[in-house]
């Protein structure tokens, strides 16, 4: 224990010296979140200084091995670092699909050369990745995907299209599922990596019900992909994809599937008004918010237990599906209550007072939580089959 205590002290001192005060403020706007990449424009010097400090220390990916840009921390040390960052309200130095998704897949399936090359790029925030999974005809039934890579000797020629590619218009590279054998459904997909600047790649943002466009359609028109740019084995990309989906659900689970994990009633009491007894001035809404708060605090404990177990290999491998299901449904409920609590103010779509319709747009955005990364219904199928071992599921 004392070794961990010493580590905590060391982390505290390091954070004190290296985390700029501006980076301890809550995230207010989308560009407060640093995504890195070739096109990234730092919002201010503090954002850059914080990223640079974390990169130098390996703290953008603290639990990755040092040769790949991490700090080589144990699960216990990583937990301590996160606790200490949370304690001072430190922002994440770098958010990235490279860290959350591609990295873990490379750590598991990549060659040593790939790990050194790509993981360091990710850790330093040099390359911003996007994920090419879903297609217009392949949503929940992902394995039916049609984007095809034709073997041309030293390269593939890729044709097809992807949909729901998050931030494809801002990404530098894509990790992409491409069919390379039409005769083999599961064992005919290759997990390719290529530059979004390659000739033949184009993107088109999709306007969502929230009025925002975080997702794109991505088109491949005779895109040349060198034959050494794949992970795992040719035609065995489905194994990588499944592993990565598990990680995506883990990240969603550990990283806030439940959204903002604080008391909703406590936050509302200030603006909503209270009766003489000091209770929120709407008994039915108060009751619903309190019932919701119980679920929030419960899910927070679940998140802690899940991560403790996951990091030490104690968790059921499919339990991230449960975390994703419970957490995303919870977050949707939160935003329903945010709207109810906000009343007609929360309906405003573009006024300055409403911060450009922030509440309404967030509420609508959360409806995708239980669709993206595997729908709630698919999560329930997976739990039924892999955890409860129900027949024919």
């Amino acid at each position, binding site marked *: 224990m004392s070794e961990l205590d010493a580590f905590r002290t060391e982390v505290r001192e390091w954070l004190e010296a290296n985390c700029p005060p501006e980076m301890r403020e809550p995230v207010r706007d989308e560009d407060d979140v640093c995504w890195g990449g070739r096109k990234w424009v730092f919002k201010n010097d503090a954002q850059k200084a914080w990223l640079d400090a974390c990169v130098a220390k390996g703290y953008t990916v603290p639990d990755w091995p040092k040769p790949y840009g991490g700090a080589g921390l144990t699960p216990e040390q990583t937990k301590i670092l996160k606790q200490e960052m949370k304690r001072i309200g430190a922002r994440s130095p770098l958010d990235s699909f490279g860290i959350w998704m591609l990295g873990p897949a490379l750590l598991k399936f990549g060659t040593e050369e790939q790990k050194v090359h790509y993981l360091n790029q990710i850790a330093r925030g040099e390359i911003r990745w996007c994920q090419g999974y879903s297609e217009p005809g392949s949503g929940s039934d992902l394995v039916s995907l049609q984007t095809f890579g034709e073997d041309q000797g030293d390269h593939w020629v890729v044709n097809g299209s992807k949909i729901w590619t998050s931030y494809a218009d801002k990404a530098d590279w894509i990790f992409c599922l491409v069919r390379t054998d039409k005769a083999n459904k599961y064992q005919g997909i290759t997990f390719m990596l290529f530059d979004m600047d390659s000739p033949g790649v184009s993107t088109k943002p999709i306007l969502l019900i929230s009025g925002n466009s975080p997702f794109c359609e991505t088109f491949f028109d005779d895109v040349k992909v060198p034959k050494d740019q794949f992970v795992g084995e040719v035609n065995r990309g489905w194994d990588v994809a499944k592993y990565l989906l598990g990680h995506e659900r883990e990240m969603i689970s550990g990283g806030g599937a439940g959204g903002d994990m604080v008391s909703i009633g406590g936050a509302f009491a200030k603006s909503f008004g209270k009766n003489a007894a000091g*209770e*929120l001035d709407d008994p039915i809404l108060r009751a619903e*918010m*309190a*019932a919701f708060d*119980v679920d929030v605090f419960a899910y927070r404990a679940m998140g802690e*237990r899940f991560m403790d177990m996951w990091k030490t290999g104690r968790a059921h491998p499919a339990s991230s599906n449960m975390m994703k299901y419970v957490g995303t449904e919870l977050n949707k409920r939160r935003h329903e209550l945010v709207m109810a609590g906000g009343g007609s103010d929360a309906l405003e779509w573009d006024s300055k007072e409403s911060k450009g319709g922030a509440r309404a747009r967030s509420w609508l955005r959360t409806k995708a939580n239980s669709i993206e990364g595997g729908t709630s219904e698919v999560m329930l*199928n997976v739990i039924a089959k892999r955890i409860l071992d*129900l027949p024919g*599921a």
Partner: protein
Amino acid sequence: MPLYHNDDQAMLKDSVAPFMAEQAPVSHLRSLRDSADATGFSRELWAQFTEMGLPGMLVPEAHGGLGMGHMEAGIVLEEIGRNLTPSPFLATSVGAVAALAKAGGTQAGRWLPAIAGGEAIVALAIDEGAKHRPDRIATTATRAGNGFRLDGKKSFVLHGHVADMSIVAAKTDGGITLFAVPKDAKGMTADPRRLVDSSLASHVTLDGVEVDADAVIGEVDAGGEILDALLAATRTGAAAEMVGVGQGAMDMTVNYLKERKQFGKLIGEFQGLQHRAAHLYGEMEVARATVMKAQQLLDEGSEGAKLMVSVAKAKAGRAANLAVREGVQMHGGIGMTDEYDIGLYMKRDRALAEFMGDVHYHIDQVARMNGY
């Protein structure tokens, strides 16, 4: 501390789980019920508990116990819940011990070793009406002679008719005071009622019961904190037992889905049932984590424990309730029969849900603790 059982705790579970399944399975509850047992539990079984050191798990070592924590007690309670085992463990070994250990002094010295030795059953005389309202205690303790005179009515007192001592919460001039009232105290009568789950709980009348000054547990007027310790421990324990009840019901039900055939298929093949079972699994997992968190915070003496205890009682209440309702429904017709065990789970869950504050009470507490 990570939120899973460490090696010692896993070993405890490995010894308690088979013990409870072999010595006190659901058939044990049935045989007590069918023989119209008047005690409410089996003294032979309690002697076996004692051989394993269970009654004194939470009793400090200085008083002859094992000095363990709520996490360990929760392991026993979950198995009690899973097997629907009737026992005074929750009231005596968790609730009463928490109060006595918190208070220290004469009564702790008198009763803790007796509890650890399996010699004393202690009842908790807190509630006064059909609902749990510990902030509205009306029973009075007035100074009389060397001690106090107790007057009032208590309800839902588990083991009240057989307890060697009852912890009575009463109003004194400057607050709440807890008293250790021995079973033969003049003026105290216990009227046991059989409850839906076949347990026995008493309506206790205190009619001018005279106790010595040293019957006070802790200090006069300072019983609030001790009562809080008692309530936190008992609520967390009840939540752990409900996790066991819910898990037992869920396991039975999921197994049934894999056996029962209709329309030429196992009913577990139907997605309508699969999704409900999978949803229940998630709720039970969350409830389990929540109860463990409350146990951990209590064991650490953390300030955050109070909130988490209410969260745990509410969440475990919701999840176990879902488990028993889905259990009966998915069993179909046989779920309604007395012969089948799933209904017994529903009954025990109902009693535990009410004990020391139901879901609604604790949801309200969570709102209050968050300032609304």
